[in-house]
């Protein structure tokens, strides 16, 4: 039996990588992937705790997260395609219309 702290450390590392990638990467697809990475890091925590406390609610929550992530991926990829068609770039630094 692996102690829960290992899962948590792994999850923290994955989440931190996700955050760092989100901040550093300029390609939208990479940013998108880093978001998925963060979501799955959280999922890992949920599962670990669910197992630890013998409670099923954590696992149910993971399903919700996966559903939302799937929906987000669908919408997000559609947006990315639309942006690429209009601006011919995937660099987030050049997509800064949302300012004054």
């Amino acid at each position, binding site marked *: 039996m692996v102690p829960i702290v290992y899962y948590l450390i792994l999850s923290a590392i994955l989440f931190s990588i996700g*955050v760092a990638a*989100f*901040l550093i990467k300029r390609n939208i697809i990479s940013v998108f992937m880093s978001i998925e990475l963060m979501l799955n890091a959280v999922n890992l925590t949920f599962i670990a705790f669910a197992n630890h406390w013998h409670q099923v609610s954590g696992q149910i929550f993971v399903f919700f997260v996966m559903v939302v992530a799937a929906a987000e991926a669908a919408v997000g990829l559609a947006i990315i395609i639309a942006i690429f068609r209009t601006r011919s770039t995937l660099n*987030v*630094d050049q997509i*800064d*219309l949302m*300012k004054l």
Partner: protein
Amino acid sequence: MTGSLNLWLIPLVPFAGFLVNGLIGRKLPKLLVTAIALICTLIPFLLVAKIWLEFSSVTTPYIEHLGTWIWTGAFHADFDLQLDQLTMVMLLVVTGVGFLIHIYSVGYMAHEEGYWRFFAYLNLFMFFMLTLVLSENFLLMFVGWEGVGLASYLLIGFYFLKDSAVRAGIKAFVVNRIGDFGFLIALFLLIAHFGTLDYREVFSQIAQHPEWQGGILTAIALFLVLGATGKSAQIPLYVWLPDAMEGPTPVSALIHAATMVTAGVYMVSRTHIIFDRSPFALSTVAIIGAATCFFAATMGLVQTDIKRVLAYSTVSQLGYMFLACGVAAYSSAIFHLVTHAFFKALLFLAAGAVIHSLGGQQDMRVMGGLRKKMPVTFWTMTAAVFAICGFPPFAGFFSKDDILYHAFISPNGGKILWFVGWVTAGLTSFYMFRLWYLTFLGESRADSHELAEQGAPVHVRSDSKLVSEAEHAHGVHDSPWVMLGPLVILAILATIGGFIGVPAAMGGHDEIGHFLEPVVGSGPRAPVGESSGLELALSASVVLIGLLGLLVVHILYKVKPDLPHKLATRLHGFYNLVVHKYWVDQIYGALIVTPLLLISRYLLKGLFDRGVIDGAGFAAGATAQGFGAIVQRVQSGNIRSYAGWLALGAAVLLIASYFGYTAHFSPQ
């Protein structure tokens, strides 16, 4: 009497008329507007008449509680209406004369723009005036008091495209506001001293403390007098009334002669319990009354505008009423108020008929000889002229006589007051018969060359051409019956109205005096024994000086028509003084209006408004803009910078919670 009298309907019906005509009158056909306006004044009149018929079975004062208005701590003011003898008389005058003038206006205003607006305002006036006389506390009275001022302003400025009318309206409103300020201070003093504004409570508190004399009561009374001088056009605030003649003539008749301007007299009579405790305030009222009555009469002597003569005569007659109040003869004041309402409304309406038929001409110098052309107007006007001059048996004789008699027997300087009033009676007779001669007798001066010889200004001569054109165009004739009907009714009232107060000395019973006695007391009493002979002698002297006035007018304007001009040249100084109305308008202008304007323009507007208020606003705006200019850099539109801030925030929270700031997060 059981059951409610439904007093609340009396003011609210005209208000409903105002709402309908005021809101949608523009789109209604003229006939409907007329019907609404007339019905909404007829209903109150019928209600009042019904109450009058049942009055003997009403226990007075009858109070009608409609609801609570203000209730804070110990102070409360309610929507309470009151009916007693004084209110009854006022109600009859306001609704009766008001209804007649509404009818007259249908004819007078028939071809005017803004017909619906006129009747809406007129109904609004009725609402406020009836509120004023029906109210049971000072605060509700103040509502009516302000409201009639508003209606008066709206109606004076009715021809709002005419600059002089707009100015006159503003002048009336501002001058009235000065008086209202006095009224307001009096209300504050009443609250501070009595803790209530209810008539009954104030008066009963005063009655329980016979030791209260002068002091705070004098202060209250004097501030009330300031209010009354504004509304009732007394010195020093009379200046607005002559200018108020810019309004349509029915307005002058209703508001600026018969009803609103008598509000001050009503108010003093209503609060006479306060005045009775303050001899100083009473003397002030008497002196103001006597001075106003005399000076206004002298100004009336030389006016050439028919309505202005009547305006000054109104100021002068109101002075009589104040004089009566000042010698504590309140029932005489109310008596004169009633008869004055009849004959002065009649004078204005008849003058209106003359003006109307001459195509808007108001200058008496170009009138003349209208007796044959307008017989009904002439005869009704004659009744009014005789009534105001105090010839028996016309209405003004009894009421004026009553006032002068009470002034004479009053202990404090009564003889002087009487003398002033007596001389004024002569002046009244002079200026009224002058108007009568110039307008109706002799030959028409339209188109005549006399004017040029008499040195009349050029515009008068061109006016005379206009009149003669009007005369030739459609012939000067009496007005339609919708206008003549009210004239005739008022003429009858002005003739016989005085019989409600025939004094005992002439074999009458002084009905109105006894009727009002429960409210206003019986007035000063004559020394025993000499009263009836003295009273007869005094009335004879008043009639004599009236006849003297008539005689002088006859000589000046009939026998030797060139004499007035010569006299004016001879008495150049005095003539100039009265023609320019003692320069009062100019003095007020220089002493009060100009400094106020300068202070407003430079100190208040330039320094305070521009500097402080605008400055504070601009400074606040500039601060916000500057702050925003710095902060807006955060919103770069760059997603990675947003994410960076987000991560930073999360990190800060994480570290904070790690170091123990978890109080608000702990689940248990």
